[in-house]
């Protein structure tokens, strides 16, 4: 609150007419509704909106540059911006070619949080994936390139742009071509710009060159439906899903999209026992595999055979000798028409995808508005391999004079042939990108590109909704413009007529959008985040089933096979310099800061790393041995991690690691598996144990592999599961001895009385897919430090929410896996509270277990006594002091120094905000759904429900009454505020 408002509120007198006029404004400043987002407040006019944008830009300039801090108070308050209150902007995040609506929260002009946009159709609430949220940290990354370079020397933007334009002109003069390489993207405007560029510079060719190239789906779709694109299934209609090597809930860019739709059918209750069934056929152990009701561990060589058999069974009516095939076929055929679906893994062959389409068609799931609707495709998802092969041969033949890389990094991820051609056969290489990466380092000229939060853009979602990406901060790196702006400058230098008078990409975007959607209100669209009236209408496409048999099959041998998959956190390694993502544990392996060679216990024995598949200690020791894996493409050295449930003779590793120029954080983390092969299966020529060891930092079971046989979580009852068939008879999952005859908890002391709110949470383990969005959401909201690999190895990761993963069944082939999100349980009888000698952790009148950082002296007694081990101690000063990383911090959450304890607060700052908002509106209580925690907001599956348990009608109160509910460790009578709903496994035949 400024001095002025204090004055206004306490002293009604005024000295001048101006002051009186301003004083009136004061009451409005804190009037009801001021804490709502600018986004929701549609009363902002266009003029005031532009003023708001420019004002926040101006504020940014003052707030973001440390040396320029001024101590001059704002005598006149910024219009529409109240210091201390956040402003929200709608934007869109392009996760490669998948658009996810975003809302960016800014404070004093700096973005501090990225969440999903609930107004964006297809997303629930603020659901956002890990990369989308973590990209915020990259905005402030000190390692971003700041200056253009020519020949390795820093130069001006103009000089570097001229250099690139010059290379293009040289190519024109020489009658040669210029290749522009772009990543997969989903921006219609960018596509339009590139088309116009090619029109203006006729010798330019545009090639889409993503790091992860999977063409099978597009080739099949082209042959069957005549559409060269990847079709996006709509899993909200699916009641029986058979996933054949498709990790649609894991590393897939569509995982966020699918998770919402999938989870909607995974939470049965006694009243409504409807639940979808998921069969996963796979060689790796994927995130999707963890969610399977039936998981069929299958050798890579058998994967496509499974689809073939399934096809014969479903389409041809044949009976299969493979029980898993028969069971899957039976389930699919028993499903109501249009509700069964088979998904083929992105890295499988076109033939496999063709078979899946044929099966789906037989199940009645293909057609307009069906699960498989040929019009629901990803932009830019057509076949790429052929074009890349073609440009490679053109480069080799010397037809390409210059190559310009638009935010792609082939020097890191492309094939050896491509890299050779680029380095040796192309006269000029230019890059425009975020980091000084591998490709930029071999370039003759490089220009930094602005971050997406600094740039204008557009994106179209799988469902056809068009969004505008608006900048929320002025470019931090010396005003460097966006990639598209730079491309425009270069284009204009080559051909002055290019784009006429359109001077900036901002104008271009606005012009293009207004031309495409003349009825659109620009300001309204910016506020909502989606262009009104867009969205794909379902359409049927004629199907040419006969083309399927002619599609290329994969030839995966039965020898040892390497499967390279995108990393769950890093995907293709673009944001390898992002500490949040590097430290995000893999949902399955819980590995951080590394990619590893995942092998089955039998494979460990085969490699001579363990003596028996049953000897857990010996298998644990097999971990961390470095093996050299050689394919015909190349060789990669990786540490071994024995993974339950893996197919034998299979090695799985993640792409996106092993960057050689990934920035100060990302460089040298893991090994580059692209060297051994692009995404997919590769025959392994040899695996040799090098004798070296490489330490693997996992956040669960450090260095051990379930060292106590028979000690499964179900025996401990900490993560309960239920069979669907048992759901009808379940009454309570908690031991009855913790309650007295009247059902009240046993206690020898008086109960806490919660007169106002009583915050509680329900976590539905049946909905949780393990995607880990919540971990990053919490990290971003609560300023949680990244600790680094060394500290994770010591067991000092700071995440306030973690996803505990428990297997059950055998080590070779676990029958099921439970993911249990674990965070502070805010116990009523909190064991941490009574042991703190200085009363630094106490119980709030609203049921929160509060941590007073300032009071903590760091005895760590609370940590020891916490049965859930959710308290996190700052063993060292973990704050990254590099500028401008401190700008990412949420100003509502205190920083923590070394020597003090921290933990989940239930986002108490958000609770306060909600309460102030309620008070502003004259309400005594916060409405249900008004106070949401960051983890809940980000969860695409709706697995986390938070609210007031004192309000009997609230969602959390209703969910608590579920017959699936239980408290973790209920028998020790801590009485947690977090209730879990048991995971249900669909055991119906």
């Amino acid at each position, binding site marked *: 609150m400024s001095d002025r408002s204090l004055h206004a509120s306490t002293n009604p007198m005024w000295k001048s007419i101006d002051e009186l006029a301003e004083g009136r404004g004061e009451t409005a400043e804190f009037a009801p509704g001021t804490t709502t987002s600018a986004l929701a407040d549609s009363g902002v006019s266009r003029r005031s909106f532009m003023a708001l944008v420019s004002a926040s830009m101006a504020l940014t300039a003052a707030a973001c540059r440390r040396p320029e801090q001024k101590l001059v108070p704002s005598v006149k308050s910024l219009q529409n911006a109240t210091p201390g209150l956040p402003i929200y902007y709608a934007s869109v995040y392009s996760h490669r070619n998948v658009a996810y609506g975003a809302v960016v929260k800014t404070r004093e002009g700096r973005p501090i949080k990225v969440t999903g946009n609930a107004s964006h159709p297809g997303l629930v609430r603020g659901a956002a994936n890990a990369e989308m949220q973590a990209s915020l940290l990259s905005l402030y990354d000190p390692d971003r390139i700041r200056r253009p370079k020519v020949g390795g020397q820093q130069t001006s933007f103009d000089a570097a742009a001229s250099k690139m334009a010059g290379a293009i002109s040289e190519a024109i003069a020489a009658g040669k071509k210029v290749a522009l390489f772009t990543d997969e993207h989903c921006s219609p405007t960018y596509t339009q710009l590139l088309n116009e560029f090619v029109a203006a510079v006729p010798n330019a060719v545009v090639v889409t060159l993503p790091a992860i190239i999977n063409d099978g789906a597009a080739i099949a779709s082209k042959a069957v439906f005549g559409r060269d694109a990847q079709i996006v299934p709509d899993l909200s209609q699916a009641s029986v899903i058979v996933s054949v090597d498709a990790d649609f809930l894991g590393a897939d860019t569509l995982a966020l999209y699918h998770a919402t739709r999938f989870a909607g059918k995974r939470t049965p209750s006694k009243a409504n026992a409807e639940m979808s069934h998921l069969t996963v056929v796979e060689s790796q152990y994927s995130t999707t595999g963890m969610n399977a009701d039936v998981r069929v561990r299958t050798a890579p060589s058998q994967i496509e055979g499974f689809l073939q058999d399934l096809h014969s069974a479903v389409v041809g009516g044949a009976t299969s000798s493979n029980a898993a095939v028969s069971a899957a076929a039976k389930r699919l055929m028993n499903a109501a028409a249009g509700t069964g679906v088979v998904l083929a893994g992105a890295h499988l062959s076109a033939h496999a995808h063709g078979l899946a389409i044929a099966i789906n068609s037989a199940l009645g799931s293909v057609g307009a508005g069906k699960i498989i609707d040929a019009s629901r495709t990803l932009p830019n998802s057509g076949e790429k391999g052929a074009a890349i092969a073609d440009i490679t041969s053109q480069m080799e033949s010397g037809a390409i004079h210059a190559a310009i890389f638009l935010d792609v990094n082939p020097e890191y991820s492309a094939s050896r042939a491509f890299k050779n051609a680029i380095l040796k056969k192309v006269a000029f290489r230019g890059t425009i990108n975020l980091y000084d990466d591998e490709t930029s380092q071999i370039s003759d000229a490089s220009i930094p590109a602005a971050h997406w939060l600094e740039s204008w853009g557009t994106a179209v979602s799988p469902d056809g909704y068009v969004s505008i990406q608006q900048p929320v901060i002025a470019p931090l790196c010396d005003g460097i413009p966006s990639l598209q702006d730079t491309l425009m400058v270069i284009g204009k230098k080559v051909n002055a007529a290019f784009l006429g008078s359109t001077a900036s990409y901002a104008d271009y975007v606005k012009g293009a959008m207004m031309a495409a959607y003349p009825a659109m209100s620009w300001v309204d669209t910016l506020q909502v985040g989606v262009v009104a009236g867009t969205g794909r209408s379902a359409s049927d496409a004629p199907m040419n089933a006969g083309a399927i048999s002619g599609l290329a099959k994969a030839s995966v041998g039965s020898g040892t096979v390497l499967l390279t998959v995108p990393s769950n956190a890093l995907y293709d390694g673009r944001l390898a310099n992002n500490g949040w993502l590097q430290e995000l544990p893999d949902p399955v392996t819980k590995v951080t800061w590394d990619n590893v060679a995942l092998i089955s216990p039998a494979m460990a024995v085969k490699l001579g790393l363990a003596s028996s598949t049953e000897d857990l200690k010996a298998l644990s020791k097999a971990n961390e041995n470095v093996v050299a894996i050689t394919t015909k493409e190349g060789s990669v050295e990786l540490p071994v991690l024995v993974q339950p449930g893996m197919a034998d003779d299979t090695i799985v590793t993640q792409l996106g690691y092993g960057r050689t120029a990934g920035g100060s954080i990302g460089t040298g983390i893991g090994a580059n598996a692209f060297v051994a092969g692009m995404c997919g299966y590769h025959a392994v020529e040899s695996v040799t144990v090098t004798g070296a060891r490489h330490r693997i930092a996992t956040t669960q079971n450090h260095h051990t592999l379930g060292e106590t046989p028979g000690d499964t979580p179900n025996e401990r009852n900490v993560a309960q599961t239920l069979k669907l068939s048992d759901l009808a008879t379940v009454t309570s999952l908690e031991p009855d001895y913790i309650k007295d005859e009247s059902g009240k908890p046993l206690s020898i002391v008086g109960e806490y009385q919660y007169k106002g709110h009583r915050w509680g949470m329900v976590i539905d383990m049946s909905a949780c897919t393990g995607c880990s969005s919540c971990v990053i959401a919490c990290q971003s909201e609560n300023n949680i430090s990244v600790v680094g690999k060394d500290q994770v190895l010591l*067991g000092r990761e700071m995440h306030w929410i973690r996803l505990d993963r428990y297997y059950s069944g055998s080590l070779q082939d676990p029958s099921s896996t439970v993911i249990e999100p674990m965070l502070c349980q805010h116990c009523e009888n909190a064991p941490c509270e009574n042991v703190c000698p200085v009363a630094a952790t106490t119980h709030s009148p609203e049921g929160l277990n509060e941590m007073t950082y300032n009071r903590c002296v760091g005895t760590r007694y609370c940590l020891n*006594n916490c049965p859930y*081990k959710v308290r996190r101690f700052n063993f060292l000063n973990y704050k990254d002091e590099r500028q401008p990383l401190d700008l990412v911090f949420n100003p509502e959450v205190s920083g923590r120094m070394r020597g003090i304890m921290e933990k989940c607060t239930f986002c108490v700052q958000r609770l306060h905000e909600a309460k102030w908002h309620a008070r502003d509106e004259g309400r005594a209580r916060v409405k249900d759904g008004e106070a949401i925690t960051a983890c809940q907001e980000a969860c695409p599956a709706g697995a986390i429900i938070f609210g007031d348990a004192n309000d009997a009608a609230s969602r959390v109160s209703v969910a608590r009454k579920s017959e699936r509910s239980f408290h973790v460790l209920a028998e020790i009578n801590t009485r947690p505020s977090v209730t879990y709903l048991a995971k249900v496994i669909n055991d119906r035949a």
Partner: protein
Amino acid sequence: MTVVQEQERLQAMAHGEEPVREDLVLGNPTMRDVTARIASIVESKITMKYLATLSVTGAMAAWGLFALYYTITTGIGVWGLNNPIGWGWDITNFVFWIGIGHAGTLISAILFLFRQKWRTAINRSAEAMTIFAVICALTMVLSHTGRPWLFYWLLPYPNQMAMWVNFRSPLMWDVFAVNTYFTVSALFWFVGLIPDLATLRNYVKSSVAKKVYGVLSLGWTGSTRSWHHYEIAYMILAGISTPLVLSVHSVVSFDFTVGILPGWHTTIFPPYFVAGAIFSGFAMVMTLLVITREILDLKQFITLKHFENMNKIMLATGMMVGYAYILEFFIAWYSGSDWERWIFINRAFGDYAWAYWTMFICNVVSPQVFWFKSARRNIPLMFVISIFINIGMWFERFTIIATTLHHDFLPASWGYYSPTWVEISIFIGTFGIFLTLFLLFAKFVPVIAIAEIKSIMPGAQPTHHHDHHGDAH
């Protein structure tokens, strides 16, 4: 004992007289001899050997203090602790040192009240050890917090924050217990020293030393009146100290028992900790006395009789802790709690089984040799066993802390802990502090209570003698 002596003893018993006991002071010295012998240690020149030893222990202390400085300036992260395991060597050392101190208190207070005369030869050094051990324990407990510069927040004092400490926390009880213990022990030791300091004041030749001892002896004149008051004060302090023997380690054990973790949350801890503390305290007294006796040539005053008595106490307390170890397993089974059962199986057969069995063999098996009189009187053997017990008792605390914390309720958060060089250095440093202080004590303070030992010499008490019974008095 010779056959004649044995017959005499039996005769004496037959006459209803007090049994004849072994001499507690050998060589039949005069009172003057005793004073001269003990005071000469203070008066003698500082030898090179002494200085060499002192510099080694001083270097250990300095190295530990450097490690402490490094910890305080960098953070607890330089230790090996992690998220499931919030306490490791720090609290292990704290409990270990607190335990060491217990023998001193037991000898000076309880044995005094029970009129165990043999205590007089060893009580001074045992009490000194108590104080030095508590100093080491305080060093550990003050430095183990994340922000040790705020240690005073653990004291209930009126402050501008209007914050009061949390009296529900066992750590708070620790603050009171340990502070009380330190204060009372120091006072008791000093009061006991007064007559001897006065003796030294009169004995030493250097004027500086005379002044120092003069001030410290608080104007002691040795009058009957002084003695009268002195003995009352001493008796009162012994009375105050006596409950401390039981309370301090009971309170320390509450740090664990009040916790809810299986392996900690158990009612057997207070008596078991007290027995263990006395056990380890006697072992440490034994270790140091064997050396002191040899080096300072105090064989006249510290006899095999003393050692034998101490070995008997070690045998008894060792059996008590052994009983507790075994009973814990029974109770874990009997409780019906899966958590309890599992943690004890894990203790004996899990990752830290090596620590558990080190503890068990050192503490339970090794003292069993003291069933044999020859072993109780074999100095090299008892020296080795006493070191075993010191090691075993350290591991007892380590086992309780580390095995409980590393695998508690949720398997997902399990971990493992190993110390870093910093923690090891700090532990070595506490030994450095302890030994340095002890060396200084042995040189500058009478290591044997001169006044007290005279009281148990033949002839000091007219009613008690055995060399010529039947003589007139």
